């Protein structure tokens, strides 16, 4: 890589050609203050906080957009520069409502922190008293235009990262305002409530409703983890205070999603109103009663050991950790010799004989076939990948039903029967990618195989950890009629047992490992309370086959235990010497997933 030599504050610096002054300064450890700039977004030089003195340039230049050149001499903290930055801040503070003492973001605000840095201890200009509206029409977060500094980070996040293009600007100068679509309330706009704008806002203009006024960042803990709401496996940070989850943020360092998450990851789980199962329950005289773990597990162990392996049934959700699924397969499949094992979600058929491609391949493609998958609803972050590629000029062909929510973005919408038309187009493309889900028919699979090495195939598994369920052989096909004793790992999933329970033999023994109360539990003989996503550690395998570590952020509700621990305890209760260490089980599971 060609390097360019320059001087920043008389210090010799070299940086790759094409870098901006800001990038070169960061490489050299020189701090230049920024406000509209964000590492994940394209710089636009809007706020003028990063102004620097460049020798030979008539005016001060924004470091975030000014490219470096050989022999350039830059001063980042000269008195002229400091004066200009202070002036910029005085102007910013004089517009709209920047009274810190009654703002939710005080203590965490980037504008405020620059006010401190440049000693803004009073206002030089009369403050602007025009009142701007507050838009609270979205369910999860508020836009207070009075706190907005019009830095356009939100607009760029919406356009560049999510490729949703909901946000834009209207008016000019001091009347400038962020708006949605053609100036409609945010709640009625094309906004998908992914909250990426909320995450990049430098001030208190965008405020999370649930965690507002619940503490400054320094009072919270950020625990990196992996989302378990779908099969993409986005990296996220669970923000907690005093043992409570306040909110969820995207992890900028995450390999899969690079900071962007969706509504289902960020907001929905925190608004879950289902009642938790907090203690083990055992049916006594026809009624479920609270018991200790020991008694509950003893009862399960006795019934499982006392049932013929052919009459033993196992059903599992795909929303469980690798460790739990591994132990489930080991205990029931290997040790107890059960074969009647199935899952609650389907598995997408393997289309390609080669190893599957990664989500990142979507970004490189010129033609994207979305076949039998509706990522907008089922794997929202995958739909952001597709929309970003469309922005870069890729052509989208949706082969699915008419109600597929990517259909409006497609240049061609086809029925599954017409898949050959899509394949013809893909044959002519330079870099075709096929994104497929469980809706792909057998015929379509056969047709798609003709693309062979030409295309990259990206599966979108319908369940969270479907990949591991299939890898551990837990997707055997389940026959309810044959089950005399059934172990259901339902976890956090909503499943009422319809279509299964009524087909089971009379007097069949039902064990449910669940996090939430549900109609299913009313039929159970034993209920084992399970920790949810924020309360357990473990690993998850995403739709690409990538194994990622999830971390525990808070203590489990009541006496609930992590999914894998329950199975490990049960196995030991049955006299099987299973490991009780998460690290050991993780290693064994990872070995099998290779």
């Amino acid at each position, binding site marked *: 890589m060609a390097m360019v030599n320059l001087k920043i504050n008389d210090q010799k610096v070299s940086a790759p050609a094409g870098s901006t002054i800001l990038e070169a300064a960061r490489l050299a450890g020189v701090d230049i203050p920024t406000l509209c700039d964000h590492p994940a977004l394209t710089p636009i030089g809007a706020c003028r906080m990063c102004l620097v003195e460049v020798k030979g340039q008539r005016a001060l230049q924004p470091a975030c957009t000014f490219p470096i050149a050989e022999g350039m001499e830059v001063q980042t903290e000269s008195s002229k520069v400091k004066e200009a930055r202070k002036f910029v801040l005085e102007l910013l503070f004089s517009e709209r*409502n920047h009274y810190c003492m009654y703002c939710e973001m005080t*203590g965490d605000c980037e504008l405020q922190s620059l006010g401190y840095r440049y000693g803004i*201890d*009073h206002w030089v200009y*009369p403050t602007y008293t025009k*009142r701007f509206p507050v838009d609270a029409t979205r369910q999860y977060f508020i836009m207070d235009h009075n706190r907005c500094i019009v830095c356009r980070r939100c607009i760029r996040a919406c356009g560049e990262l999510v490729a949703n293009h909901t946000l834009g600007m209207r008016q000019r100068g001091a009347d400038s305002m962020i708006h949605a679509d053609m100036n409609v309330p945010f709640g009625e706009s094309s906004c998908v409530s992914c909250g990426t704008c909320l995450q990049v806002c430098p001030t208190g203009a965008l405020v999370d409703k649930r965690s507002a006024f619940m503490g400054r960042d320094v009072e919270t803990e950020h625990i990196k983890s992996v989302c378990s709401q779908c099969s993409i496996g986005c990296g996220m940070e669970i923000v907690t205070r005093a043992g409570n989850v306040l909110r969820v943020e995207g992890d900028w360092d995450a390999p899969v999603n690079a900071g962007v998450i969706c509504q289902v990851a960020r907001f929905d789980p925190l608004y879950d109103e289902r009642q938790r199962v907090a203690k083990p329950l055992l049916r006594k005289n026809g009624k479920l009663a609270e018991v200790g773990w020991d008694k509950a597990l003893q009862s399960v162990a006795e019934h499982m050991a006392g049932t013929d392996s052919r009459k033993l049934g196992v059903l599992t959700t795909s929303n469980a950790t690798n460790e739990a699924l591994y132990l489930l397969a080991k205990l029931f499949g290997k040790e107890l010799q059960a074969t009647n094992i199935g899952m609650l979600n389907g598995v997408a058929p393997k289309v390609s004989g080669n190893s599957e491609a990664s989500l990142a391949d979507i970004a490189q493609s010129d033609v994207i076939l979305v076949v039998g998958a509706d990522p907008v609803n089922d794997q929202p972050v995958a739909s952001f990948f597709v929309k970003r590629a469309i922005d870069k000029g890729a052509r989208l062909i949706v082969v699915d039903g008419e109600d597929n929510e990517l259909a409006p973005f497609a240049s061609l919408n086809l029925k599954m029967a017409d898949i050959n038309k899509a394949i013809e187009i893909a044959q002519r493309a330079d870099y075709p990618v096929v994104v497929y889900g469980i809706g792909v028919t057998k015929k379509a699979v056969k047709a798609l195989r003709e693309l062979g090495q030409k295309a990259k195939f990206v599966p979108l598994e319908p369940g969270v950890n479907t990949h591991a369920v299939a890898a551990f052989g837990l997707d055997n096909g389940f026959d309810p009629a044959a089950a005399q004793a059934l172990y259901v790992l339902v976890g956090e999933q909503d499943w009422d047992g319809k279509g299964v329970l009524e087909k089971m033999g009379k007097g069949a023994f039902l064990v449910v490992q669940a996090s939430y109360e549900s109609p299913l539990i009313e039929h159970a003989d034993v209920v084992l309370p399970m920790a949810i996503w924020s309360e357990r550690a473990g690993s998850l395998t995403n739709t690409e086959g990538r194994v990622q570590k999830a971390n525990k952020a808070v203590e489990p509700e009541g006496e609930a235990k992590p999914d894998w621990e329950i199975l490990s305890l049960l196995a030991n209760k049955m006299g099987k010497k299973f490991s009780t260490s998460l690290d050991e089980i993780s290693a064994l599971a990872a070995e099998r997933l290779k």
Partner: protein
Amino acid sequence: MAKVTIATDWLAACAGCHMSLLDIDDRIVQLLEAVEFTSSPITDLKHPPEEGVTVGILSGAISNTRNVEVAKQMRERCQILIAIGDCATFGGVVASRNMVGTEEALKRAYIETESTVDGLIPDSPELGKPLDRVTGVGDLVQVDLFIPGCPPRADALFYALSELLAGRTPVILPPEHFVYD
């Protein structure tokens, strides 16, 4: 050596800044060896003496004509004027009224609130007349030192007074004493 004289007063304020001044705690005894508090809203003597003081301290925003009078008098009677608290430096909580306008704010507060029956906007002649716009003290008279904070920390006030006693005039407080809330 004669003691340095200090007078304090409040404008449109909540008294929190003066509480912070008292929060200097036992260090105030040490302070009193070198300074004399001539007058303050929380002592018997309320007004700065005619012969003037060395340091004048004002908390609160300029919200009505009475505040204007008090602020101007303090400026005339002191050599160094310190504005303490967010209200005196920026307008503070009082200035949130600017977002709706004075008339609207008075109507809402005294007539329209859900718990009010037969409300009345106070207009007794002993009260100052509300201004159309609330500002910090610096918008009206020359201020020599701003100490923001809601309230400013006792340590910040103690630091500023100690510096002045040592013959140094702080221009901007050091970061550990500089807060907006």
